[in-house]
């Protein structure tokens, strides 16, 4: 990939914000807070611990949680695993049924599949054609032995926002099922209020919000009495829910990134929405294009478009020298699989394959959007002509 390619893959990852990187660097060297935050017996450890706790407070403030709710992890994948395995194990005597959706991230689906292998029962709900998981359907799937409902807040492929608040209210009525929300794509793209939503567990990722890779958190609502069995054992860090020395620089980076994301959200939301609409208006002119999740509530930074009459791998290959985007399919390998998310929305295999996910971010400019529209238009027209369409 040429370094000069326009980067429109911010949903995959974001560059670390310079001010965040500077804060992280302060934790790494002898002059900084390099101590083990678990070393309470000396000033080095105390300084590192103070940095971690400050970061914990920043993360909590950005998502409407209590600092005590924040359990630092290595990322959203670990947070999802901890939420699912930890809940399943803790409540195993109360029931062994989980409700989730087919459009969840693999780090939710794969733990669920593993639990099925261990004798659990999992219901995989299918969203409607716009990618929306209707709360009533979630409630209908909850059984007397359901102990966990796991639903993502913002879908990583379509940007569709689920009505988590309504799902939480319906789950609460069941009395038993805990609600876990994968919010890896949410911070900095839409408002997140953990306490107000009424969810029990929430997974967060730092690197989707201009923080470092390898950093994340699971919010565990103390107020709602959520309990987990840990999946890692050792030093008993993070309230014994996640043993292992807390990576001070990662936690500090996440805290700084989340604080920054909250500060710029109001202005960025509007700017990004305008850019995404500009891109969509230009692509729509091609004809034979479908905006996935068009009628649903979405985050503004994500635009997922299916192009009729072109083959997915060729489309990606044609735009790749100029654009860093991802396809709606896991098309990078020889064993190509059309996007399971788009298929769950009712797109056929060909259309699911010929989809591009444009995800805009803090550094996306109007010129980037115009370049992207021009590159994609040229590629689609050329491939359609080549296919005799």
């Amino acid at each position: 990939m040429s370094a000069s390619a326009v980067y429109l893959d911010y949903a995959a990852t974001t560059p670390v914000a310079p001010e965040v990187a500077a804060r992280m660097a302060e934790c790494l060297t002898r002059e900084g807070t390099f101590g083990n935050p678990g070393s309470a017996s000396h000033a080095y450890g105390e300084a590192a611990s103070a940095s971690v706790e400050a970061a914990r407070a920043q993360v909590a403030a950005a998502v409407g949680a209590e600092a005590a709710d924040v359990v630092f992890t290595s990322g959203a994948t670990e947070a999802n695993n901890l939420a699912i395995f930890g809940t399943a194990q803790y409540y195993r005597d109360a029931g062994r049924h989980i409700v989730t959706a087919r459009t969840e991230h693999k780090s939710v689906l794969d733990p669920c599949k593993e639990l099925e292998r261990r004798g659990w029962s999992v219901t995989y709900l299918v969203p409607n054609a716009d990618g929306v998981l209707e709360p009533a359907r979630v409630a209908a799937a909850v059984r007397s032995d359901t102990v966990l409902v796991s639903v993502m807040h913002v879908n990583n492929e379509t940007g569709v926002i689920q009505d988590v608040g309504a799902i939480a209210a319906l789950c609460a009525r069941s009395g038993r099922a805990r609600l876990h929300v994968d919010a890896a794509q949410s911070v900095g793209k839409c408002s997140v209020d953990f306490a107000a939503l009424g969810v029990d567990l929430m997974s967060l990722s730092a690197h989707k919000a201009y923080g470092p890779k390898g950093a994340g958190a699971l919010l565990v609502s103390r107020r709602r009495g959520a309990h987990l069995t840990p999946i890692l054992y050792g030093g008993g860090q993070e309230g014994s829910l996640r043993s292992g020395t807390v990576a001070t620089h990662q936690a500090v980076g996440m805290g700084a990134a989340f604080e920054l994301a909250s500060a710029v959200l109001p202005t960025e939301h509007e700017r990004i929405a305008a850019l995404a609409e500009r891109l969509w208006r230009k692509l729509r002119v091609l004809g034979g294009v479908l905006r996935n999740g068009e009628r649903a509530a979405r985050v503004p930074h994500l635009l997922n478009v299916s192009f009729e009459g072109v083959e997915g791998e060729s489309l990606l290959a044609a735009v790749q020298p100029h654009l860093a985007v991802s396809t709606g399919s896991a098309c990078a390998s020889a064993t190509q699989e059309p996007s399971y998310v788009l298929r769950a929305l009712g797109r056929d295999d060909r259309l699911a394959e010929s989809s591009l996910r444009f995800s805009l971010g803090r550094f996306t400019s109007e010129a980037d959007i115009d370049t992207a529209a021009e590159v994609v238009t040229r590629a689609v027209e050329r491939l359609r002509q080549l296919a005799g369409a």
Partner: protein
Amino acid sequence: MKYNELTRRHFEQPARAGTLAGPDCYRGASGSRSAGAWIQFDVRVSRTGGASRVLEVRFLAFGCPHVIAAAGVVAEQGEGGAPEPRLPQSIHSLRERLDAPVEKLGRLFVVEDAWIAALRHAAGERQNSAHDQITPSSC
């Protein structure tokens, strides 16, 4: 996915993309868009005296870059050759030249099938079976 120079050149600049028309042109197609690979070859065949050869080849392609490149290479190699219903080189050899994953062999066979279909139509004409000739209206 990474593509080698040959694949990228034929994918980005498919020199023989298009169609042919006329009484000395023959068409063969294979595959389907819904299955992910579809190829159409048009060949113009010259017949002078007892000898005949492929004068010109054009193709249309729906498929991944390896499929498009394979069609381009076959079209390039086919020009000037005898109108025999077989590839100028084996599909296995072509796959290796394009550095296509072995999983794509099935798609590359679609290219071979389309080429053979076009040349069979040309051979059929020699036996006074002109129904596969391409007329301008059919293009």
